[in-house]
């Protein structure tokens, strides 16, 4: 698919010419997607709002650099994920329970419940695994991370990824394979150093 001649490309060119109506259209078109991506990673509405604003601000100032080599959605997705990881690096999140949306009352109830004394409760394990996979994804390149997330989180097929990124399907498969291998190796290094559950 030629990303240069699509309706979306025309919209991008209008934003590049500082057409505010075009920018508003992009925001309204993608705000839910961006918000959902961020919330899926961080699981916190307040943080999702802050980062989503940052994402669209970055889109506004960087749209001049968009070169139509990929689809607009791919480009926005990459910015969104990178902003999430920038946020995580700054905050140094280790225990996602502190970033969750639980009220103080719920959090206290969880701490005092019988299940809270069991170190291997489903909730703790799920949060630990989430923390782990986020940490591992941070170890691979931006491009690999975006590709893996588009494939597994967004559910795009290899054919769709090929159209979105303008790379042929074999290249996509090779890149995915290598990204997965890097994640496995990063998990093995982490296992050796901390003895955590292998991924």
């Amino acid at each position, binding site marked *: 698919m030629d990303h240069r001649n699509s309706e979306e490309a025309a919209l991008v060119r209008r934003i590049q010419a500082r057409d505010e109506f075009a920018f*508003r259209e992009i*925001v*309204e078109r993608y*705000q*839910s*997607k961006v*918000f*959902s*991506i961020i*919330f*899926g*990673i961080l699981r916190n*509405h307040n943080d*999702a*709002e802050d980062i*989503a*604003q*940052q994402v*669209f*601000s970055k889109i*506004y*100032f960087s749209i001049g650099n968009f070169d139509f080599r990929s689809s607009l959605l791919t480009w926005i997705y990459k910015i969104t994920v990178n902003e999430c990881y920038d946020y995580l690096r700054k905050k140094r999140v280790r225990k996602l329970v502190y970033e969750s949306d639980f009220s103080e009352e719920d959090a206290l109830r969880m701490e005092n419940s019988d299940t809270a004394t069991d170190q291997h409760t489903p909730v703790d394990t*799920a949060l630990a*695994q*989430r923390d*782990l*996979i*986020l940490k591992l*994804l941070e170890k691979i390149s931006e491009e690999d991370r975006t590709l*893996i*997330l588009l494939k*597994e*989180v*967004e*559910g795009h*097929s*290899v054919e769709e990824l090929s159209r979105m990124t303008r790379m042929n399907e074999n290249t996509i*498969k090779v890149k*995915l*394979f290598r990204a*997965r291998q890097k*994640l*496995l190796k990063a*998990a093995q290094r982490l296992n050796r150093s901390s003895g955590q559950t*292998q*991924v």
Partner: protein
Amino acid sequence: MHQPVREELEDYLAGGTPRSNRFSQHLNTCAECAAEVGALREQVRLVRALRAEEEVEPAPGFYARVLNRIEQRVQPSIWSVLRDPSLGRRIAVASAALAFVVSAYIVSTEPFRMTPSASSTVAIQQLSRQDTPATVAQDRDVVLASLASFREN
């Protein structure tokens, strides 16, 4: 990972059925590949857990807040204003012009020096006519100055 598995890995991880029997036959006979595929399936499961269960909407007024964020980035500080080349030139020219005007004003209003000249008589007489508190010493000085200028003439 061996080629028979690698070729159809993405289809397999996407939940599809491998196109040939080679994939499953190889996994049945190769423990190394079987272990690696198992690890990759677990990896996929964890990554997919990053998907939000349903689409999440921002609170109303999101676009206005985005514009606000953009405006905060655009608003210049005093230092960024001074760094602007065209504005910096204008400020430099204006400063030079102001310095010139101030200097000219200072020079033009600088008090007369008491040097011997034809105009000294006029100057002394002007001084003597100033409404200054009259003291004996000042009166004497005025008289002496008048006499001095009279002699020169």
